[in-house]
């Protein structure tokens, strides 16, 4: 297959790639592996902390590390969430977004040292921030917990490490663009804007009173939807047609899906403030935006599930490691969107407010959707970049089943457990202790699923690191080009 036979290429399908390592790929191998390896290390750290948090959850006197100041739940929970989001999620999407747009735009990363520098600064700042959290120096705003001096450093590191997709888009040789490119450009541009504005108004020049909470909720919705959501959607748009070798069904809807997603996602923040002492019009904006977000959710559902449903797509997806993870994620995204709309309304939200339900929704988005898609992408990209095969098929199976079962179990435990305790909390005669006791059966599920996730991540790390080490051995050096 030659590289230049795609003049009549149909829309809705990424270009055919070369099966060998291309020059564009060889050039981004260094930064890609740096981002990927650090992402996996943070993922392991986050899953250990996740297990500790699950053991502590819901019990004020049980749990290990009782009476140990460094490992109080307030520290563990904050460190876990930040490591997962900024350590795993960001590093992994730095790697994947860069690879995706280099592929789609045939972009040669000449200044790879800048990306490497950005990755190094990002990870050093992150390490410092997490140590500070354990040392008791945190800000009290979820996902902005790092002491405020970390913020600007992370922002600069983001520009060095995460801005290359936009350069790749600008320098692409062809006029044609593909859905993945829009979503990655959007994610890479929206996050630093939102992060800097939030840093300013929440930590450096705090707004007055509850406006801090409003700015914070606005930031969290941007981070979760416009960075995690958009980056992962880009990957699904790429891998589904690529691996199945067909076009996205209803691809003409994709631009509408893209713009409605970006248009509505930024307004959904206040839906996490329903009932809070903030203006009512603001809460209503959040409710409306949450419902409107159903438009892009439906469009992506048509695009993804339509593509998978024709000509035995599901069974082919099941038999392909990459697609098995990616289509798991695609289903999870649709589910997330439906739940987000259904529980965004004032009545339903009042039931689940302040319970574990919101954590369950976040788990659906950042784990069942984004993380599973990232895993699938790793199974596609890493063999190409390292030029070797995954060392163990067994570990791949362990990885899939442990993470799939773990994430299903923990999402159900958080969502259903949250809903149940919300129902009980609505009755003021049921005491908080009784509610906690009734929900304690879910705590066991959370511990088991945390163990499963940890096992799955260890299997993934062993396999991936084994492959990377094998490929950097001197025997195979210089095999390409």
């Amino acid at each position, binding site marked *: 297959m030659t590289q230049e036979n795609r003049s009549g290429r149909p829309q809705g399908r990424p270009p055919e790639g070369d099966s060998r390592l291309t020059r564009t790929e060889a050039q981004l191998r260094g930064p890609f592996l740096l981002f990927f390896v650090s992402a996996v290390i943070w993922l392991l750290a986050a899953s250990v902390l996740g297990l500790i948090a699950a053991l502590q959850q819901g019990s004020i006197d049980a749990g290990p590390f009782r009476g140990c100041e460094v490992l109080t739940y307030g520290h563990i929970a904050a460190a876990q969430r930040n490591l997962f989001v900024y350590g795993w999620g960001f590093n992994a999407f730095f790697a994947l977004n860069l690879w995706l747009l280099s592929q789609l735009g045939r972009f040669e990363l000449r200044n790879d040292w800048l990306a490497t520098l950005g990755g190094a600064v990002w990870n050093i700042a992150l390490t410092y921030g997490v140590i500070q959290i354990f040392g008791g120096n945190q800000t009290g705003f979820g996902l902005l917990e790092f002491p405020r001096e970390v913020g600007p450093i992370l922002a600069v590191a983001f520009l060095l490490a995460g801005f290359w997709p936009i350069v790749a888009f600008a320098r692409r040789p062809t006029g044609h663009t593909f859905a993945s490119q829009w979503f990655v450009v959007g994610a890479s541009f929206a996050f630093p804007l939102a992060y800097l504005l939030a840093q300013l108004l929440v930590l450096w020049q705090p707004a007055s*009173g509850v406006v801090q909470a409003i700015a914070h909720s606005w930031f969290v919705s941007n981070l979760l939807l416009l960075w995690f959501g958009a980056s992962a959607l880009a990957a699904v748009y790429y891998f589904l047609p690529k691996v199945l070798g067909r076009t996205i069904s209803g691809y003409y809807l994709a631009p509408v899906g893209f713009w409605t997603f970006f248009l509505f996602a930024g307004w959904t923040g206040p839906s996490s403030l329903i009932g809070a002492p903030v*203006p009512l019009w603001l809460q209503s904006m959040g409710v409306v935006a949450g419902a409107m977000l159903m438009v892009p959710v439906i469009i992506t559902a048509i695009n993804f599930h339509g593509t998978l449903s024709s000509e035995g797509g599901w069974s082919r997806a099941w038999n392909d490691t990459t697609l098995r993870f990616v289509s798991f994620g695609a289903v999870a995204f649709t589910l997330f969107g439906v739940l987000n709309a259904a529980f965004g309304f004032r009545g339903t939200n009042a039931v689940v407010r302040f319970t574990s339900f919101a954590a369950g929704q976040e788990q659906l988005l950042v784990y069942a959707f984004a993380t599973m898609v990232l895993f699938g992408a790793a199974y596609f990209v890493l063999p190409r970049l390292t030029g070797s095969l995954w060392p163990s098929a067994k570990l791949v199976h362990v990885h899939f089943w442990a993470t799939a079962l773990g994430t299903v179990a923990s999402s159900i435990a958080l969502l259903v457990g949250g809903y149940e305790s919300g129902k009980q909390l609505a009755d003021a005669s049921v005491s908080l202790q009784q509610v906690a006791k009734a929900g304690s059966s879910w705590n066991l599920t959370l511990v088991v699923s945390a163990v499963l996730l940890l096992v799955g991540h260890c299997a993934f790390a062993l396999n991936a690191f084994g492959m990377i080490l094998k490929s950097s051995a001197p025997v195979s050096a210089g095999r390409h080009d």
Partner: protein
Amino acid sequence: MKNLNTLLAGIFLAVALPFGALVISSQVQLGSLGRAPAEDGGPLFPSREPGLAIQGRAVYVSLGCVSCHTQQVRPAGQGSDIARGYGTRPSVARDYSQQKQVLLGDRRIGPDLANYGARAKDLGGVHAAIQHNGQFAFLYSGAKQDVPSERAIALAAYLQSLRQDYSSPEAKLKQ
């Protein structure tokens, strides 16, 4: 979709418009809230925070108490906050106008603390609550773990300062 500038302009608006409409306009609406009497000539509420309470909030933040405790009372009809005794009236924005850092929280593994100062009986009870059955014993010393450290004293002062038991122009207490 092919033009980078159009794409970036659209994304910029998608981030900036909600920021302006949600965050900046609520700053305009709420930024000038201050202490106010419920009726003419009455005492001004909310009270200013005592210095020790400000130190105590730093302890509250540093231990991550916000992971398990909220500080907001929802209006009747949304949940059972008032029936549960978390407050006597819903929280309003003015209640937080004197706080340098607002810790509304979004998870209730423990009870809401917005009005804790009003329902705490005595200082001993506050310290017993802070101990959480010994989980926060590191804040105390002595043979019976009953001598509070400086941090525990500040934290207790902060918790006692959390009160929403006054009438304010937006939320009057029922007589």
